[in-house]
Structures are given as structure tokens and as C-alpha cells.
């Protein structure tokens, strides 16, 4: 039922948090195995799944933020029933005819119920209209391809037309998607330009960097936001930590490329634990209303 709602044509729909688990069992297998009990990736405590749900998938023992899907993210942020999705049927044309790519996509589409790695739409956060986008780490590691790029560009364009703020939750571990080659690279250009046109109208853009925001996602729209928030512990950077370690042949500093580390180096405004995210966004949006 959750999925049906999301697939419906743009209109305000009810997204019920209590139905989330249906979806979780599909997409979050690695992070949150099925069954009643879940082991925390960080502290290894065994957690009761219902408790974890209530705590918004933040480990009650150690504060570890489990990866959540784009749908869950939107459910978490928008007022109940206040989200209408854009472009839900948009799919890639596979511009390079890259071998095995379409098969791979199909597998992810079936697993996640999404056509590609992003959901965009118009939502309300505490009564305030906002154009909202969430990248889904579980869909090919949230990598940016033509669909992700085009949906972000259109989201900014709509926001510009309607004079609305934009919030993007960017969990894109894979950066640019290899299988669409240079077209994925071009999405860095396009999303930067879209963010810039929006910005030139003096409209607000808030980026929420979640596990993980790397490569082409970080090096484009995500770091051009007016205000950059991040979830605790999220991996954030351009080059991947393993590549750096291999190339430099030296150990990485403690906590390298975590949200906390990047914050200390001046690239993030605030680290916001998940339970405070909606209120924070609501306040920031309210303070930028004209």
C-alpha cells in the first residue's frame, strides 16, 4: 500500500510511517536484517526492531544512524499526507548502451520499488511548502545518473518558478554512475547550474548530507547549498577513503571523512541527529520566508 501511494500521480498522499517495515525488508537487508532483532553495525548490540523503528533507525545504545530509504526519509520529514512526487516514472535511456546495465537496473527496481535512485516532489514541512528530494543509497549506492540529475534539475526549476526552498537529502555513496559514463559526469554540471539559477533568485537551498555523500554528488549541488547539514557519522568526501589509503600508502586520520571531521574542517554548518532534522528544517525554512 505504501508503494502504491508513492507510485500514484502527483497529488497529496498519505505516507504512513508505521508501514515502513514492508519496504525495509526489501531494501535494507544489509543494514537491517529481517526478523525481530537487529545487530547494530557500530556497537554490535542486538536491538529490538520495533524499538529501532521508533527511534527513527538511530541505535538507542550508541547513536549509530542506520541508512534509511528515500521513501522513509521523506515520510520522516514531511507532514503526514503532504507529499506529491514528481517524475516517478522517469527512467534512463541507457545512453551508452552499457553492457548488463539494464538488467542490473531492473534488479534494483524490483528490490526498491523505485525506477531510479531518487525521489523528488513537493512537500510540506510543518505547514511550509518545500521542494524535497531524497537520494536512495540502496539504489545502486545512490549514484548520480541522467535520471537523478534530470529530476534534481527539474526540482530546482519548479522551485524557482514557484519561489520555493529546496531541500535535498543526498546519500549518494557511488558518486557519478559509471554505467552512464560521461552523461553521469554531465549531471554534476547540470545540477550545479540548476542550483545556481535557483540561488540567483535568492531562494533557499538546504543540503542534508547522509551516509554516504561522495564523489560527484558531493562535488556538485550538495556542496553548493546555502546551509549544509549532515547526519552524525555520515561518510562525506570526494575521493574514496580506500583509494586514498592505497595511493598515499599511509593510514588515514581517525574519523577521516566522517561528518564530524568534515565539520571540523569548515565544510558543514551543523551536524543534526535524525530526530531533530525535521524541526531544524522547519525552523530554517520559516526563518527564510518572505
Amino acid at each position, binding site marked *: 500500500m505504501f508503494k502504491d501511494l508513492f507510485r500514484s500521480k502527483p497529488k497529496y498522499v498519505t505516507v504512513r510511517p508505521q508501514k515502513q517495515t514492508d519496504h525495509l525488508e526489501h531494501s535494507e537487508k544489509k543494514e537491517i536484517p529481517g526478523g525481530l532483532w537487529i545487530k547494530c553495525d557500530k556497537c554490535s548490540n542486538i536491538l529490538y526492531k520495533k524499538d529501532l523503528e521508533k527511534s527513527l533507525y538511530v541505535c538507542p545504545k550508541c547513536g549509530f544512524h542506520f541508512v534509511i530509504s528515500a521513501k522513509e526519509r521523506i515520510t520522516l520529514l514531511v507532514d503526514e499526507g503532504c507529499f506529491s512526487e514528481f517524475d516517478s516514472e*522517469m*527512467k534512463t*535511456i541507457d545512453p551508452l548502451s552499457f553492457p548488463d546495465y539494464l538488467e542490473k537496473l531492473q534488479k534494483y527496481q524490483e528490490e526498491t520499488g523505485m525506477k531510479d535512485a531518487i525521489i523528488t516532489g513537493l512537500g510540506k514541512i510543518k505547514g511550509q511548502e518545500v521542494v524535497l528530494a531524497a537520494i536512495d543509497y540502496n539504489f545502486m549506492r545512490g549514484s548520480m545518473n541522467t535520471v537523478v540529475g534530470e529530476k534534481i534539475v527539474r526540482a530546482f526549476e519548479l522551485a524557482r518558478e514557484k519561489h520555493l526552498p529546496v531541500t535535498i537529502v543526498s546519500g549518494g555513496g557511488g558518486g*557519478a554512475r559509471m554505467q552512464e559514463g560521461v552523461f553521469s559526469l554531465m549531471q554534476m*554540471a547540470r545540477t550545479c547550474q540548476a542550483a545556481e539559477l535557483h540561488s540567483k533568485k535568492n531562494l533557499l537551498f538546504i543540503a542534508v548530507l547522509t551516509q554516504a555523500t561522495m564523489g560527484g554528488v*558531493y562535488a556538485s549541488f550538495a556542496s553548493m547549498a546555502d546551509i549544509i547539514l549532515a547526519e552524525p557519522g555520515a561518510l562525506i568526501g570526494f575521493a574514496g577513503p580506500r583509494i586514498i589509503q592505497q595511493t598515499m600508502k599511509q593510514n588515514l586520520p581517525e574519523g577521516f571523512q566522517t561528518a564530524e571531521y568534515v565539520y571540523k574542517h569548515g565544510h558543514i554548518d551543523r551536524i543534526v541527529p535524525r530526530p531533530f532534522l525535521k524541526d531544524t528544517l522547519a525552523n530554517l525554512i520559516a526563518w527564510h520566508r518572505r
Partner: protein
Amino acid sequence: MANTLVLDFERPIVELEKRIEELKSFAKERNLDLSEEIDNLQNRSERLKREIYSNLTSWQRIELVRHPQRPTAEELIELIFDDFYELHGDRLYGDDPALIGGIALLNGEPVTVIAPQKGRDTKENLERNFGLPHPEGYRKAIRLMKQAEKFNRPVITLVDVVGAYPGIEAEERGQGPAIAEAITVMGALRVPTIAVITGEGGSGGALALAMGNRVLMLENAYYSVISPESASIILYKNDDFAKEAAEKLKIGSQDLLEMKIIDEIIPEPLGGAHKDRVSMGRFIKEALERNMNILKGLPQEKLVSARYERFRAFGKVKEDKL
């Protein structure tokens, strides 16, 4: 070709030329008239060269642009422009020797030129960090781009960069944000911008300098979201399949022209830019002048909107309803 690295696929040419030389010596030594045979062989050699160099695989082209004698940005600038006054520093943290920039004269007209700078030998490469900019390099580029805009000076970039630098400090000082800002700033400049991919056009590091109203590309250059080696690792768990990946990723100039990612291919001298630097410089200069003449006629608003439209077009998708 003394002191020049010979690539695998060039061996037949080199072997044949060696034979011709031997035959010449032999003829001279023995006082024989072998001129007809030598002429034939030389014709044969020319044909062979054309045949080999005109049918390079993607990988062979990559080998060519990674050739140690490939002209670097400094050498190309010297060949293309009448004058070049380098400006230094990002005014924030440092001066990045891996990226050069300054004011040059293209046919007497001031332009701002920005380019990653590889070294010509190991010592230089260590100084230049193999042409891999740190954030201060991108921020110097941003500063010079804004300076160019202020003085209504076109911006020309020469792009030859493997990709992002996988370094701790580069991450700490925000190479992601620096690249994003360079993309954004160059993408919105109110002056003509022309990018020339002269060698390696590696991912975000290249795109940061490639937001041109025109994007030109040297015949053998490549432009890719990921290095073929890395793609091979992702696809096959090791880098033995870089050649296949290079084909699949369609990163060569001909493919990119067909996909309209680039606007024009600048031909290279037979065998690559390093075989005839002067001609290479002339070809680039000619292409820059021709394109600049068109762009200089456009009003500022049009330059900006045309650039937006140029990149806006790379978002073709399917939108069938289920």
C-alpha cells in the same frame, strides 16, 4: 624519434624505419643504387603510419595522451598565445603549482588562460603533483575566472588532468566543494568560455574547468567520468580489463562528438601531438580563434543562457507511464 618512448602499437613503424636506415647504410657502404627499393619502403612506411594511427583503439589513444613527451599546458600556451603572464595564488591558502593561470594574448586580444600543469619529468612531476590540483588550485582558477569576468575577458581552459587527487589534505581543504564551485562559477560566467580537452579529461577534476560555451577536444584525448582502470576494477574486480572499459565508456573524441558532449575535434599531427608540436599549436590556435570570433559577437546574457542550454540538454530520459 630519439629518446622517445615507443608504444607497443608503434613498433612495426619503428622496425620498418630501422630497416630503411639499415638499407640506406648498406647501400652507401656497398655503393649500390637501392633508391627505388628505399623509396618503396618509405612509401610503405608512410602508409603503415597512416594505417596504424588512423585506426587506434580507445586504449591506444589513451597511451598516446599519456605519452611522456605529450606537450604540457605550458608548452601549448607558449605555442598558441602571443604572450602569457602567469598570476599566482588563491588568496586563501596557497599557490598550487599543479594548476597554472594568467592573462594571455590570443591574436593580440587579452584572454584568461587556466590549465592543470603536468611535469615533463619526474622532478617536475613531483613539483607539479602530476598535474593533480589541490583545492587551492581550483580556487585559484575560480579567482581568475571571476577576474576575467570583471574585465570582460574570455576564459580559455586547457584540460589535461587524470582526475581528483586522492590525498588527505585535498579532502580536508574541501576538493569536493572547490570543484563544485569551479563548475558553478565557470558555468555562469558572463564572458565567452572555451574548454579544450588536450589530453586526459578525468572526471570532476576535468569538468571543473570544462564548462565551456564550446568544448573542443584533441583527436586523441579522452573525457570520462571514471578512469578505465577504475571502471575495470568495479566491473571485473581488477584492472586487467581497462581496455574493454575504455571502449564501453565511449570516452574518445569521435564518440563524444557524436553524443554532442563536445563540439569539435581538433586534429592531431600524425602519431600524436608530440610528433609535431608546432602544428599542434597552430591547429588549436586556429580552432580557438574561429570559435572565439563567434562567441565574441554574442551579448553577455546570451553567452550565459546558451551555456546553460548546452548542458541542460544532457538530461535525455524516458518518461513512459507504466
